[in-house]
């Protein structure tokens, strides 16, 4: 759909384009973005958002959505921005944006594209090796001074040869697959449709069948209505008592209370989790377990990824403001 033309007669041609923020930008993004764009910061006003926007942002064409706490963008917000043409997300996950509402209103959405994929994949592999080979556990053991006391005895599980099932063979999933192939892991996957580009990876039409034939499940798909709680008790039973789940997607891909139960009961063998349903809350029972590795949603927070996503966001916004094709539009 076409972008809307806004009334810019009150603005000088060399003025920076207005871009609305819904939450403060990270210090890694703010300096460069504020040089290029006139950033509107509603939280600096005492007015509530639904009063601020009609009065101060009625001509705004662009929003930058960024973390670590992305404000949800729903119909009610879009109604207040009649001239909005683009939402540029600094994240790859855009489950906080109502894509259907955006499509109806002709608002384009761009995300981080594949800029985060190497880091996300590295982190997924790192979590998997850590869980199986007990790296964080071994590190704790050594630092507590237990090695001279308890002697040798930590025995992990082999990574090479484990059957890896990837849930979502998109950019991140295919980067994971390439890496784990080099570890001698056969790759299978579940995706909305089979991927003809990857004939050596085995496709399964549903996650349950994938879990039956896998030792490890790696979650790297988008969170949508269809994928919420895609990892449920049945899937975990199918994965089995030595099975490992690695999540670098979104916490809500997994039925979290059920995950905790399954780990406690030994229904599955372990988990590596970078994301949780209600960050920064981490289910307390997980914090006592030795067969899990937890992290604070940092899979893609590297200077390299941030440099990449900043360049991409600017390229998308510049393209938008000059009527050119967007670089990383999200199709609904």
């Amino acid at each position, binding site marked *: 759909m076409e972008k809307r033309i806004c009334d810019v007669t009150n603005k000088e041609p060399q003025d920076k384009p207005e871009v609305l923020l819904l939450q403060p930008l*990270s*210090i*890694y993004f703010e300096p460069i973005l504020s040089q290029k764009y006139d950033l509107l910061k509603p939280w600096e006003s005492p007015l509530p958002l639904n009063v601020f926007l009609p009065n101060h942002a009625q001509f705004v064409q662009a929003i930058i959505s960024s*973390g*670590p*706490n992305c404000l949800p963008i729903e119909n009610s917000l879009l109604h207040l921005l009649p001239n909005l043409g683009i939402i540029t997300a600094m994240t790859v996950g855009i489950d906080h944006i109502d894509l259907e509402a955006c499509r109806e209103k002709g608002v384009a959405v761009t995300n981080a594209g594949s800029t985060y994929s*190497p*880091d996300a994949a*590295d*982190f997924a*592999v*790192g*979590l998997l*090796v*850590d869980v*199986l*080979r*007990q*790296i*964080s556990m*071994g*590190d*704790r*053991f*050594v*630092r507590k*001074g237990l*090695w*001279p006391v308890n*002697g*040798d005895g*930590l*025995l*992990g*599980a*082999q*990574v*090479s*040869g484990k059957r890896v099932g990837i849930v979502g063979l998109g950019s991140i999933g295919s980067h994971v697959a*390439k890496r784990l*192939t*080099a*570890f001698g892991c056969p790759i299978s996957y579940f995706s909305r449709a089979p991927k003809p580009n990857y004939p050596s990876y085995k496709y399964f039409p549903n996650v349950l069948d994938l879990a039956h034939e896998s030792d490890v499940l790696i979650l790297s798909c988008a969170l949508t209505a269809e994928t919420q709680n895609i990892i449920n008790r049945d899937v975990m039973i199918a994965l089995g008592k030595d099975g490992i789940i690695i999540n670098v997607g979104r916490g809500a891909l997994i039925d979290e209370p059920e995950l905790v139960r399954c780990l406690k009961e030994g229904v599955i063998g372990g988990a590596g989790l970078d994301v949780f349903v209600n*960050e*920064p809350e*981490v289910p307390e029972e*997980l*914090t006592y377990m030795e067969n899990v*590795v*937890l*992290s*604070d*949603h*940092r899979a893609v*927070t*590297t*200077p*390299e*990824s*941030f440099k990449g996503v900043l360049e991409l966001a600017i390229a998308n916004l510049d393209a938008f403001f000059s009527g050119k094709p967007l670089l990383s539009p999200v199709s609904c």
Partner: protein
Amino acid sequence: MDKIGVLVTHKPLPYLEQELTRRGCRLFRLWESPESRRLEFCRQNAADIQAIVGNSNYGADAATIDALPKLEIVASFSVGLDKVDLPKCKERGIRVTNTPDVLTDDVADLAIGLAISVMRRIPSADKYARSGAWKKGEYTLTTRFSGKRVGILGLGRIGLAIAKRAEAFDCPISYYSRSEKPHPNYTYYSTPIDLASNCDILVVACALTEETRHIINRAVIDALGPKGVLINIGRGPHVDEPELVAALVEGRLGGAGLDVFENEPHVPEELFALDNVVLVPHVASATIETRTAMADLVLGNLEAHFLKKPLLTPVV
């Protein structure tokens, strides 16, 4: 192997102990004696000991070999033989076997796992996520692993397996070896310092010998530099440990992932406060699958010897 006397130097894998016993061996458990009484233990039982099963920590040094005149074979539960006096064994006609190949994948897996762990600060993240202190404020940045230049010291079986994995992360591969190898995709450097100067992550994957002791010295550490990361899955004595500790504490080296130490099980406590190091207790081959395969090699070599058949993995 009925009634064969086997000196076991270390507490063995239960499977190995069971199998040795089941096959009729008499086990002499050296690790149960305090260190100062071990030579005496050997002498007391010398008439009955024909084989040693050693490991990476306790092998068969000259004094032990001299104390055991009936010794015929040393079957090491390790691939590294730096703790076995090989010239002495040759001299005495004692056979020596190790456990190559079966542990190659595990060691390479751990090397890459440690590298990612150090660069992305995974143990630190785990500690923070468990602490209850996690607040979603500003981001914690850690540096990307993919694409970093990986330098491998020693391009043997393990070095090659590490290279293969690192390549999947788009890491350019370089190496130091006693001589250049036919790998056109990998850049050869003729000295460890040149290698260290030209890589971001340096992995020690060579055998420990007289020549490679302290091959990672202050000069090499300085060449690796404040953004460089050292991964040691070789042997503790490959690294000048006090120099390494000083460099890490002073920030002259960017980080380290260490599976081995000069004086195991003792690890320099100055490292415990650092979050740019990952420390694991010599676990590179510590998976149930691999340790079982290593045990099978030890058993297979011992049986072959006492049945006068060709050894499976002889070194001497």
